[in-house]
């Protein structure tokens, strides 16, 4: 327990150290970095991804994966846009989009939880299929001209300098933290993620929980898709295309194991901060997108690799010390015998 605690602490400690480094370097190289405006922009530019990352953390800790989230985001945005375009009141359109998201999640969840197909396969199909449904709806059009209150929701500050989606993220993060770390559901997410058979043998309805998580994932992705539509003020068929890898990267860098059962939201929160600040700093320094992605990729690898190498070096050093002793001992005994 103590060792594990130490390891966890060191993981989050590592992220914290990286974050501090990023902040200091950014602040020195780009004076505008620390401005409140930039700090809000930095969240706002990726706000939909980090919202979905929260629920993705649940899914991955539960031992599954959802590759379809970006397509669900796109589909939800398209549903809002197309319904609005056909004269449906915006409020109704939003509700319809959220329901559709939950339905997509239920669809994924059904195949995973009740039929037992691997989530990688199911959500890969969902990734292609849900995007396809969005295409059917919107074809090659671009829909904009949403009501002012809707775009203001995505673009204007709501309370003080903070826009709605940022406040929503803060609330959702708190909620996710409480649910995962302090609720019965959170407990079950971990138990099932580590070993679903143990949960089943303890009388827990594993499929129902998995289905619930996928529905939540679809719903939150749809919510993020609607927010994205509000922020951008226009929707096309490729809205949110390719977001899934960024989202999964945030969760994995947060120390969540892809095999399920371990990780926590503090790590995910820190990892979000690290990635956003790093990208923002590089962006302010005009580093191109490919290099940014490459740097985040390196960070992802190094954050696991370096502690591992340090650990191995320590072990090797200890063993060598032992061997030296052993060799000496061997010499002594052979001399004495």
């Amino acid at each position, binding site marked *: *327990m103590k060792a594990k605690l130490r390891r966890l602490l060191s993981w989050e400690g590592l992220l914290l150290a990286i974050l501090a480094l990023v902040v200091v370097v950014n602040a020195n190289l780009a004076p505008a970095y620390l401005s409140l405006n930039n700090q809000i922009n930095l969240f706002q530019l990726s706000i939909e991804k980090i919202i979905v990352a929260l629920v993705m953390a649940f899914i991955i800790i539960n031992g599954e994966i959802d590759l379809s989230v970006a397509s669900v985001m796109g589909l939800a945005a398209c549903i809002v846009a197309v319904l609005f375009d056909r004269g449906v009141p915006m409020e109704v359109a939003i509700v319809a989009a959220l329901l559709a998201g939950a339905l997509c999640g239920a669809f994924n969840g059904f195949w995973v939880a009740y039929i037992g197909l691997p989530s990688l396969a199911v959500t890969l199909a969902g990734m292609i299929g849900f995007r396809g449904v969005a295409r059917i709806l919107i074809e090659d059009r671009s829909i904009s001209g949403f009501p002012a209150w809707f775009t203001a929701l995505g673009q204007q500050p709501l309370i003080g300098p903070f826009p709605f989606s940022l406040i929503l993220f803060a609330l959702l993060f708190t909620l996710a933290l409480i649910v995962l770390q302090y609720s019965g559901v959170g407990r079950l997410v971990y*138990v099932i993620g580590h070993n679903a058979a*143990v949960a089943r043998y*303890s009388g827990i309805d594993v499929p129902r929980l998995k289905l619930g998580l996928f529905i939540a994932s679809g719903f939150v992705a749809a919510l993020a898709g609607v927010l994205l539509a509000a922020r951008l003020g226009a929707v096309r068929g490729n809205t949110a295309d390719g977001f899934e890898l960024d989202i999964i990267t945030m969760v994995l860098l947060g120390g969540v194991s892809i095999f399920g059962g371990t990780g926590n939201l503090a790590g995910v929160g820190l990892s979000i901060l690290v990635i956003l600040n790093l990208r923002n700093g590089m962006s302010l320094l005009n580093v191109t997108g490919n290099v940014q992605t490459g740097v985040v990729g390196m960070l992802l690898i190094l954050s696991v690799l370096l502690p591992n190498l340090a650990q191995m070096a320590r072990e090797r050093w200890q063993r060598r010390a*032992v061997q030296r002793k052993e060799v000496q*001992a061997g010499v002594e005994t052979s001399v004495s015998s």
Partner: protein
Amino acid sequence: MQGSPVLEMRDISRRFGSTQALAGVSLRLYPGEVHALLGENGAGKSTLIKIMTGVHQPDSGQILLDGRPVRISSTLEAQRLGIAAIYQEPLMYPDLNVAENIFIAHAGRGPLVNWGKMYREAEAILAQLDVRLDVRQPARGLSVAAQQTVEIAKALSLQVRVLIMDEPTAALSAHEVEQLFAIVRRLRAQGVAILFISHRLEEVFEIADRITVFRDGRLISSAPRADVTVEQAIRDMAGRSVEQLFPRRHTVRDETLVQVRDLGRQGAFHGVSFDVRAGEVLGFAGLVGARRTDVGLALFGIAPADRGTITIAGQPVRIAHPRQAMRHGIAYVSEDRRGLGLSLPMSIAANITLPTLRRYLNPLGLLRRPAEMATAEEFRRRLAIRAPSVEVEVGKLSGGNQQKVMLSKWLNTRPRLLILDEPTRGIDVGAKAEVHQMIDDLAAEGIAIILISSDLPEVLAMSDRVLVMREGRQMAIFDRHEATQERVLAAAMGQRDAA
């Protein structure tokens, strides 16, 4: 004794963090000798084995093979030196078939696989073991005993000089144990040195030539079998004398709690009928493959029965899901602690409250930690779980303490019928006595208990009645006084009992 030792461990020490796992232990293994190693869990047996097989390196001390110092740097190196081990937990490759499992680790068979030759050799080895397994069958789905057999075959297929057997009999029932001992004797005659580890003292005293006892990383005693008594061995292991191994104070009550009639599940078992009364221990005996566990799983709703009736306290019930079973007061303690029973990275408390989590939630669905802790503490006291706190990860506990956590977890559901599947497999003698004590106490409280065990002395000593199964069929039910080892075995092996 017989000339010079083939393997000598000299003054071996090894630390893990702050734990001194081995402190200056010396041990000699002679060719043609079965050397039994006894000790409670944590005594250092496993560490010694791992050093012998190259998994761990000693901090100090020397290993001599044929009198020459050697360094065993890896499992492969150990194999080259002729040292092989059969572990407690069979290490199968579920996707590979039986023959491949036997030969996969073999070095020097060339880069190509000759399937025909491999099947023939595998069949030959299994024949030598007097076991008939389909060598082309994938290991997935093999019973624990069959897996163990494959493990033994694997070790035999290497030309071993030193064979380490770490609780090889834990999952075997009497008949298989006899088969195994025949093999062990054959190997002994061939001059193989065997290090034999078991918690079943009667077996140790049957097979061993020399008995060594470890406690707390130190060698306590080592003597020829003839010079050791069971009591003395237990005292050396525990550092104290263990009172009765098989306590029995409970009395069976009159009310029939569970009535099972003609229960069956396609492809698994059929025609099982029995009653269990409150406060009664009903033993389930049988050979491996007798499908005793399947009956337990049917009663618990994991693999529901498709035929027959179950009546609980006079009410016919349908059990299609563990939740339904739990509602009827049935609890099932799995034989596979690590795979099915416990969530190893979770705390003791979290494991204990897992099936009853709803009780520890407030209206918002948040955990009521204090209530959870209180329950866990209560069970820690009641079952004497040895752990610094209830927040310790279960994976860090010894087998016996893990077993107690599992029991706590199910006792907390306040069951009326408790199904215990191999509750003492792989736990040391002290913990075993405690588990037996608990079974007796629970029966005394009026809980009906189904005890599935391959440890025949345990079944016979603990049960009020013994149900014997074979190949998915119920062979006989014996009352306590008529259940002798011979009759149970005979029934288990297919001879209808005249009585």
